Each structure stands twice: as structure tokens, then as C-alpha cells.
């Protein structure tokens, strides 16, 4: 899991997922 520092009450988390033969960095922004 990758995270960024919380800014404006918003948290961003990410992880790199393999989808079939390609790599997707899924980034989710969520409010605190």
C-alpha cells in the first residue's frame, strides 16, 4: 500500500495491481 500525506482532509492511497499482463496503479481518494 502507498499513501500520501493527508491534505485538505483528503487521503490518497494506492497500490499496484497486476491485471492480466499489465500493471495498474490504482489510486483512491477518500475524505477523512
Amino acid at each position, binding site marked *: 500500500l502507498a499513501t500520501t500525506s493527508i491534505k*485538505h*482532509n*483528503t487521503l490518497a492511497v*494506492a497500490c499496484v495491481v497486476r*491485471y*492480466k*499482463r*499489465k*500493471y*495498474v*496503479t*490504482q*489510486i*483512491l*481518494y*477518500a*475524505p477523512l
Partner: protein
Amino acid sequence: SPEQIRRDQRIGLEAIREFLQSKTSFDVLPVSYRVIVFETSLLVKRALNILLQNSIVSAPLWNSKTSRFAGLLTSNDFINVIQYYSQNPDQFQFIDNLTLNGLRDVEKAVGTTTSLETVSIHPFKPLYDACVKMIQSSARRIPLIDEDEDTHREIVVSVLTEYRILKFVSMNCKETKILLQPLHELNIGTMTNISAAKLETPVMEVIDLMIQKSISSVPIVDDQDKLINVYEAVDVLTLIKGGLYTDLTLSVGEALLKRSDDFEGVYTCTLNDSLFAISETIRKARVHRLFIVDDEGKLLGVLTLSDILKYILFS
């Protein structure tokens, strides 16, 4: 000879259709890429800042309560919010606290008829099918949705845009080289009833025009009808950045001053240009539409990526 060119055009179109049938949407995706997703409980103004920060204009939404994909956030949503504010200027607090969940209510309140259900397609369906779905829903982008093998929950694999598909074709389909018929023979694009504005036109009038005619750009012309600029739907993001709605009183010329400096400019072409030349331009630059002008630069019409895709698939 013109006859040979017409024959080549048909051969080229057939070959591109076969190409689109033979590839899947998954093939268009780079080996490594990112997908930025917003939880639907995020504030609209936060989501706007994150889009601008990442230089993107759209993002898929995720409803963590139902653990399902909840459609796409696009510039249409921000246009709805602007329209809602201009109809209810006393509702600033409501708008300031608006979350992405609330956008559907705003859409209903302003009465826009965007398709409530976002179309999507499985990544391994033929690319041709994704194009057909986009054209049918007049969406300019289509989410690729698969399901998790264990939990059967949806996965937002990516979002394909018309631009990415046409760029993929221009880079991988050598038959674009024989699409040499001039535009004036193809009956393609919009050449009549073009809604244009002047630099002094209030930006709200231009936004209303986009809503009424369901268009995503309004050309700006001078008194001699020469094209001088274009106001695009994505420009509204810079208009309300930071949740400020004070700039809605600007003229469209003033509003265009807020565009970021790395805007690549408006692309023009003439009726003598071919789809090969347009395809080459798409391959090299981020073109979202071309404005058709005459030799003096007077506005004649507009050619959108949807027009090009429709022509390739159905002409």
C-alpha cells in the same frame, strides 16, 4: 485519380474496421498505467482540485458503501453545478458542501438529460464494440469494467476515450495512409447552425449554449466571423477552481485567461484536408476537435472526434 482515391478510401475504412474488430480495449492500455478513482463521499470542490492537480478532466467514482463503481465524474457534472448555482445563487453553502454523491440530484434539479446510467464495457470485448457503445451513448469516454475473480466485485480497469482509440488507430493501422479523400467529399462534421460567441460574450451565456446544444466547445469569432479561439467544456474546471463562483461574471475572453499555459492551442483544418492528415495530427498531438476554416480563417464548421469515429465505423 479521384476514382482511385475513392476506392482507396473504402479499402482503408474496411481495413480499419477489421482492425477495430480484431483488437480489444485491453490492447489499447499501456503495459503500466494508473487509474485515479474518487470515493463518492468526497467533496466536489476537493475532487475538482485533484483533477486539476493531476492534469486530468475525468475520473471514475467508487461507492464504498455498496462497493460498486458509481459512474464517471466529467466536466458535464461541473457544468451542472454551475448551472444550479446560477439558478440558485443563495445555495452557495449547499454547493460548497456538495459531495460527489449529490451530483445526481443536481443533475435532476437542473434537468439535464445526461444518461443516468454510465455505459461501460468489458476490457476483452472487441474495440469495435466499445466504439459503438460510445457513439450510441454520445459519451466521449467509456469505462472498462471487469469483475474480481474471488468476490465478483467490479474492477474499474481503465477508462478509454475517443482520443485514445483514434490515436491507437493512427499508430497501429497503416491503412490510415490511404484515407486521402478531401473532407468536402465526405459529408462529415457539422457545417450548419454553428453556435459561435464573441470574446465579450458573458461566459455564462457560452456555458448555457453548451448545455442547450449538448456540445463540448463553442468557437469564439471576431466581427468578420474569423475564428480566434474556442471555449471548451473542460475550461469550466479552471473557472470554479477552489470552489469560487465569483468568476461566472467574466466575459469568455477573460475566462480564457485562466487556461493553463501548457494549453496546446486550437487545431484548424480546411475542407481540402484528408483523414490521413488528421490522423497524423492526432498521432502527434492532443487534438480533441478540429475547426474547419476557409482560406481567410473564417469559421465554416467543426469536426469532432465523435464525427471521425462515426464516419470510420458507419459511413
